[in-house]
């Protein structure tokens, strides 16, 4: 059975060009970038080249790029790094602002910080997942250190007005961090256009290898590390650099940037055709997230009278890979905090799936998905104890 992968927000296949770029660094140029000899120099060169690639693809300078192990670590470093630096300046260190629909990497970091005495404001979003800018502006206090608001949401795909947030942050002289893990490669990400101070990216979401990530840190932004060891990455991220992973990440970001004029348009066409045809063929369906201000690859749908995991498994049996809420939370059947934040009713929440497209998905694949969805939703609704009679 040919399988159809439409869970690109969970993770992506490594691009063959990316893998090729990595291979020499496992077995030939395997040096440690801290070593002074020729093996070490090869590693340093690879590291610098990747750093330049990353910088170029987001409009940054090479010295503003910190390599991490992934998106989660980048988010932790941004928020905790700023707070650690300001810890002795009590007038500017007690308060953090974020949104109610952030990824667990940000939300769990914030609850940890609350547990050790910091205060966090969770700004709400409207029914389409767009941040309430007024509330954000009014929540800024004299002791606010950092605003962390994601660029685009991983579940419902809503894109936030980051430029407006950046303006508010700048006016109030507060650092602004954005999690661009889902947006990079799908919509333009330029740190100066956006006006952000820090920005997180994860390699495995953009056809790069797992185990690598980036934190962009604008020159002059003062951070402290939260992992301790040797002085790698300007003292912000110790540990022997994952050269093959970083080389792959650099290549993946370059490719994504190059293809920005093409891939997102293709995904957008598939997305809108998918949505239209699903609405045509099934009743009691809802599209979650913003209708237009959304990632070109995100389709988040709620089917009434159907439970998401069951639908996922029926599709899986047909070779189609999608997700229920975010991949992170699908193991524990906890209600999605994103869906409750947009005020979705419980009977819709439980029947929610996310289809996240990739650059290599085809229109034929979407045909198959529409048909399978129709069959599977029909089957589950027949079985359901709460379907309309």
């Amino acid at each position: 059975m040919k399988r159809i992968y439409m869970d690109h927000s969970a993770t992506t296949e490594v691009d063959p060009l990316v893998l090729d770029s990595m291979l020499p660094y496992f077995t030939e140029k395997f040096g440690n970038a801290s070593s002074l000899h020729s093996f070490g120099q090869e590693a340093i060169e690879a590291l610098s080249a990747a750093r330049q690639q990353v910088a170029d693809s987001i409009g940054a300078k090479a010295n503003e790029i910190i390599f991490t192990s992934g998106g989660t670590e980048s988010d932790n470093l941004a928020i905790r790094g700023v707070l650690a630096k300001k810890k002795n300046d009590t007038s500017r260190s007690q308060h953090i602002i974020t949104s109610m629909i952030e990824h667990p990497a940000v939300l769990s970091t914030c609850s940890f910080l609350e547990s050790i005495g910091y205060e966090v404001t969770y700004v709400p979003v409207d029914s389409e997942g767009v941040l309430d800018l007024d509330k954000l502006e009014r929540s800024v206090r004299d002791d606010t250190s950092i605003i962390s608001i994601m660029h685009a949401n991983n579940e419902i795909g809503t894109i936030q007005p980051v430029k407006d947030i950046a303006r508010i942050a700048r006016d109030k002289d507060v650092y602004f961090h954005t999690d661009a893990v889902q947006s990079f490669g799908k919509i333009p990400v330029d740190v100066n256009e956006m006006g952000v101070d820090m920005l997180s990216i994860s390699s495995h979401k953009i056809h790069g290898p797992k185990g690598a990530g980036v934190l962009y840190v604008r020159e002059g932004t003062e951070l402290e590390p939260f992992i301790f060891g040797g002085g790698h990455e300007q003292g912000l991220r110790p540990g022997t650099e994952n050269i093959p992973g970083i080389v792959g990440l650099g290549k993946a970001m370059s490719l994504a940037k190059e293809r920005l004029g093409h891939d997102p348009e293709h995904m957008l066409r598939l997305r809108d055709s998918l949505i239209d045809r699903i609405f045509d063929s099934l009743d009691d369906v809802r599209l979650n997230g913003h209708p237009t201000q959304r990632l070109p690859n995100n389709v988040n749908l709620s089917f009434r009278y159907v439970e998401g995991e069951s639908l996922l498994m029926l599709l899986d049996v047909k070779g189609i890979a999608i997700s229920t809420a975010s991949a992170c939370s699908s193991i524990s059947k906890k209600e999605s905090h994103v869906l409750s934040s947009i005020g979705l009713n419980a009977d819709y929440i439980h029947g929610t799936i996310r289809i996240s497209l990739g650059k290599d998905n085809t229109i034929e694949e979407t045909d198959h998905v529409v048909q399978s969805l129709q069959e599977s939703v029909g089957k589950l609704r027949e079985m359901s104890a709460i379907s309309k009679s």
Partner: protein
Amino acid sequence: MYSRKVIEEFTDPKNVGVIEDADGVGETGSTVDGDIITIYIKVKDEVLEDVRFKTFGCVVAISTSTMVTQLAKGKKIDEALKITNKDVIDALGGLPEDKRRCSGFALAALHKAIEDYKERGTA
């Protein structure tokens, strides 16, 4: 994560449906939890002649529902009451640890259906 048997039962469930003139009906769960299981029984001479289910729920909810109906169907009521949660899980070739909690709902619905039948008899 799920055994082959669970997926088989889930994708091809037996005894789905409503018994219009049921002798007993039992329901468990709530829309808030995201699982509702209704079990219908038809009884003749203290034997569960027919057992059917309607389930809104996850893979475990559906596969345990169909398994409970299969295990109970044709059994005498007092025998059917002896079916344990473990019997259901074993018949499904096991369930993931973190999903065990959900596995009792279908059996509970059967018990409620039998209770309902008994209450109707005494009424």
